């Protein structure tokens, strides 16, 4: 039986099952509401732009637009890399060990998800400015974090780090400790066990956490707006064009940004599936 036939058969089975199971049917329509909401919102934006395709092509050729999108992608990627480097060890500790203050640490990690983004921006501005706790040492070395690429990275990192830490933590929790015990009984040290057993087994969750972190970072606006208006990242440029020139000027950039982000996101997701055995 070829793949197409199998798909048709499984769709028919699902339809039959939905007819029998009224609750599933209800859940299907409730869930569909959210899917339609997202689809209509983005679809409408794309549809309206079809009346002015030339503006979209102009945006593709505009170096300012491309630089802003490039800045967003680079900053989100770097913030994800930093979150991965520091977040994975923390997630492992939180998943595996019980210690005094663990719940406080978990609470602190979750704070960025709970506070308004503009509040986070103001807090970040306070520590990153030239006289701030973090900004002052950098300023002494001749670097400014305000209105700088690294300021964008730190703003994105602050807003997105809970996604990586929490997802990786859940991933580590799913790895049975007995795998680690057996690995050590086979002569592997704790670090070899982490590299060869624990990390590979938790990798799907960690990878998922990286994707969420990257997605959260690249979409950050408010905190970045306050910390680093320059160099202009894509959301800042879209906002600026909208307030200065209106919808017709901002929408082509928005659509281009969405297309690029969606393409990258799909690529990352697809490669995740490829990694799964």
């Amino acid at each position, binding site marked *: 039986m070829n793949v197409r036939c199998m798909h048709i058969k499984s769709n028919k089975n699902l339809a039959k099952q939905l007819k029998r199971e009224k609750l599933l049917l209800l859940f299907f329509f409730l869930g569909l509401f959210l899917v339609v909401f997202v689809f209509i919102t983005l679809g409408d934006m794309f549809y309206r732009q079809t009346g002015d395709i030339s503006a979209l092509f102009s945006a593709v050729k505009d170096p300012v637009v491309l630089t802003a999108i490039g800045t967003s992608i680079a900053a989100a990627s770097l913030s994800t890399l930093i979150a991965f480097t520091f977040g994975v060890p923390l997630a492992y500790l939180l998943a595996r060990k019980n210690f005094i203050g663990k719940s406080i640490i978990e609470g602190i990690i979750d704070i960025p998800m709970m506070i308004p983004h503009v509040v986070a921006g103001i807090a970040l501005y306070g520590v990153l400015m030239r006289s701030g706790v973090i900004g002052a040492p950098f300023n002494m070395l001749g670097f400014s974090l305000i209105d700088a690429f690294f300021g964008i990275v730190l703003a994105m990192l602050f807003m997105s780090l809970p996604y990586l830490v929490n997802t990786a933590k859940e991933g580590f929790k799913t790895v049975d400790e*007995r795998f680690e015990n057996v690995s050590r009984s*086979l*002569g592997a040290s704790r670090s070899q066990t982490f590299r060869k*057993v624990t990390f590979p087994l938790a990798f799907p969750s960690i990878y998922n956490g990286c994707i969420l972190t990257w997605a959260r970072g690249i979409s950050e606006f408010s905190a970045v707006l306050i910390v680093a208006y320059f160099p202009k990242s894509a959301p800042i440029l879209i906002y600026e064009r909208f307030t200065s020139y209106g919808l017709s000027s901002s929408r082509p950039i928005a659509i281009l940004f969405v297309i690029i982000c969606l393409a990258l996101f799909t690529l990352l997701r697809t490669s995740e599936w490829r990694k799964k055995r």
Partner: protein
Amino acid sequence: MIAIKNLERSWKDFNLKDINLTIDRGEYFVILGPTGSGKTLLLELIAGFYIPDTGEIWIDRANVTNITPEERGVGFVYQDYALFPHLTVRENIEFGLIIKKLPKDEIKRESSRMMDLLGITHLKDRYPDTLSGGERQKTATGRALVLKPDLLLLDEPMSALDARTKSGMQDEIKKIHKEAGVTIVHVTHDQTEAMIMADRIGIMMDGRIVQVGTVREIFNMPKDRIIADFVGTENILEGSVTEKIDGLIKINIGSTEISTLSDLETGCKVNALIRPEDIIISREPQRTSARNNIEGVITKIVNLGAIVRIEIDGELVAFTTKQSAEELGLDTGEHIHASFKSTAVHVLKK
């Protein structure tokens, strides 16, 4: 080989208490106990996965109490085998060899030899989630044995296997034990498995080792009534010593009297333990070395396959082969004689 001295360890609401145990080199030692008695925790302490609260563990005359698992060189097979799910059968078996940084050709040679020995070469490229219970068991055992450990710890290794596979694996493990000369500590709650596999058995209950002995000592001479119940001594007859002559005592049990060897004095209240398989069923009283003879009525017959379980007067249980039961033409309500040697009776003072 292994000496455990005054070992204690708490784990949530559970405590391992005052564990003292010596296991000889090359011995097949089974720790037998009910679920939740602390068997796996003891095994994990020997492997070094946890550090005891107090006490010491010695392996080959070295105190390993605070030594990490990777330095102990002890093989471990978990109940559900804990095969690394992201590695194939070959990769699982080669894991420890790669960690040891052996030359590549030696790794291939050793893993192939082990897979050949266990008959799993055809599975080498399969992942654990595609294997049957027996195949997983073989892979996990091979993964541990390929490193040629002096000590192998098995945590209920056959509990997930069907009867036929279990029997095959028992033979296989016994063969490996004999050929490799490895010391094995095997944890189980299955009395039959313990009986088949063990050189010696340690009974574990409620976090303590309560009796250590040979298979015969454990099953025929349990130290107390609780152990007797656990090891399946179905006949526990209450009575008192009525006579003692030259080390031979008579015990009055209700309407009948049985004799056995004991140094207990007249008047002592006792429990007389007799294993069902030590009782011979006959139509006529036995006049051989079976000194004790109890006449009674069959109240229940249960067919257990090759074995038949017979209840006499609702209190004495005997096993006989299906063939014997058919030859005797046994049926409920019939009068029969149950006889057993005086040495088959184990007496516990109440």
